């Protein structure tokens, strides 16, 4: 059994709910950034957005609110690793809510990234009632230093170029016992990164993730296919399956990348 702290304890995720106004502050550790860069991983931003927007929707429903889909778009590299987040409802339906989350770097007014996610209400049985206490427990602990890359700590392994796997472990699951949506986003990001050679590394700047089902047995395997690539950027398609359950589809995702050289050369305004 894993004795690692839950991955969320490395996120320095200081969230606040001010009468339904959900905000957060986080200092992103270097091990949460894309390799060799100061770009916070798109998968890590997905974790923040999935948590903050997910809490907000869960509070609204009064039940846990699994994520149906999540898009993250990073427009530019933030000049600071201290981030401020703000979520708001775009849609509050009876069974489906849509949350947007904007990311702004400390000292700036304009956002550098945003995420949009749809969340679905679970059945209203008593045992599925949502309590922010669950999230409070995680927040109550001081941020744990992560001394290795988040993908290593999560247990993601490269099994072949463009193919990566992860097994469900206590430190990477969500409140309903399956792989956390942000971890699955990180898995797709790693599959994309591993599709490129060390001579031509890419940074993922956009993820459009559709959660089709929960991996029940595992490991979850992500395979990336480069749809188009040129010296500056690329588009990729990623499929995640539950290899222990007849390769049942778990996630489909579309990813956008920038070549690391181009990404690193970008000047923040």
């Amino acid at each position, binding site marked *: 059994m894993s004795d690692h702290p839950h991955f969320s304890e490395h996120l320095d995720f200081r969230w606040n709910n001010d009468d339904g106004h959900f905000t957060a502050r986080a200092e992103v550790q270097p091990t949460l950034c894309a390799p060799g860069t100061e770009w916070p991983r798109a998968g890590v931003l997905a974790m923040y957005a999935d948590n903050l927007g997910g809490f907000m929707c869960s509070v609204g429903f009064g039940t846990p609110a699994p994520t*149906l*889909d999540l*898009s993250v*778009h990073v*427009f*530019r590299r933030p000049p600071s690793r201290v981030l401020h987040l703000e979520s708001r409802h*775009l*849609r509050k339906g009876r*069974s*489906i809510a*849509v949350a*947007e989350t904007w990311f702004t770097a400390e000292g700036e007014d304009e*956002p550098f990234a*945003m995420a*949009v996610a*749809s969340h*679905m209400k679970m059945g209203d049985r008593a045992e599925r009632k949502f309590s922010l206490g669950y999230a409070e427990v995680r927040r109550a602990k001081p941020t744990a230093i992560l001394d290795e890359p988040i993908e290593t700590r999560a247990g993601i392994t490269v099994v072949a170029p463009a193919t990566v796997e992860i097994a469900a472990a206590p430190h990477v699951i969500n409140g309903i016992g399956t792989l956390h949506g942000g971890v699955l986003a990180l898995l797709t990001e790693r599959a994309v990164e591993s599709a490129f050679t060390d001579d031509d590394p890419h940074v993922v700047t*956009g993820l*459009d993730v*559709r959660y*089709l*089902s929960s991996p029940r047995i595992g490991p979850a395997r992500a395979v990336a296919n480069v*749809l*188009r690539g040129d010296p*500056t*950027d690329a*588009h990729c*398609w990623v499929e995640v399956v539950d290899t222990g359950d007849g390769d049942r*589809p778990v996630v*489909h995702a*579309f990813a*956008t990348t*920038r070549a690391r050289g*181009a990404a690193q050369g*970008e000047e923040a305004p």
Partner: protein
Amino acid sequence: MTEPSPHFFSQLGFDFAVLPDDRFVGTAKVQPTLCIPGTVVPRPSMLATYADIAIGFPAANRFGFPAPTLDLSMHVFRTPTAADLSMEAKLVKVGKRVIVGECWFTADGEDDPYAVCVATFFTTAEPLSEEWRTPTADNPMFSPRQDLPEPIADRAGIHTHAPGSVEVQLAPHISNGTTVQGGIVALLAERACESALGDDGRHAVTGIDLRYLSALRAGPARATAEPLRSDDQGSHFWVEITDAGDDDRLIVHGLVTARPL
């Protein structure tokens, strides 16, 4: 009296079939007026229209309920060599309340797809009437095929309200029976971004990620594009579409990407 405009579906050059296993296969003869001006590339919003139908019909069949679109992401990742195309859609998630489908587009004469759309549909509480059948390509909605001699944005009635801001009124030829058809909403977002880029003809929208939040009731629908980033590689825009006649009530949010042609 002026002849009413035919529904824009009849100008899509659409031929298709819904297969028993929920797959949808189709072809389209894409008129130049449905393409990005000066190119043979179908507008992403028109691809979104095909996909909305290609996923939406099987979704409604499966639910037995009308299936409004919850969100739609359109990604054009390569420049096709021909406007005419084939498409294949399938449902990748069939839940009790939501269905997710994807639709891949391949240009005539090519083997590999150049665009993909992923969309989510949800159920309504109103069962389909017993007479409802999945429309076929010879349905009056799509047939007979009509020529479109002017750009689709003009025919839809989209006009520029201010740089980066465009409007459209709900009209029968762009309606889905309740509100503005989702593909025309995508076109409105696309046009807002083109306007924000100065309608310079040197950039093209390549990605549209839309969330449909509510229906247009009063109108006009007004799309406003705000640039989030712009450089040699391309641009990101945040687009909000509101019901200008209903206190600017938000009806659609979107993230749109554009690249130099």
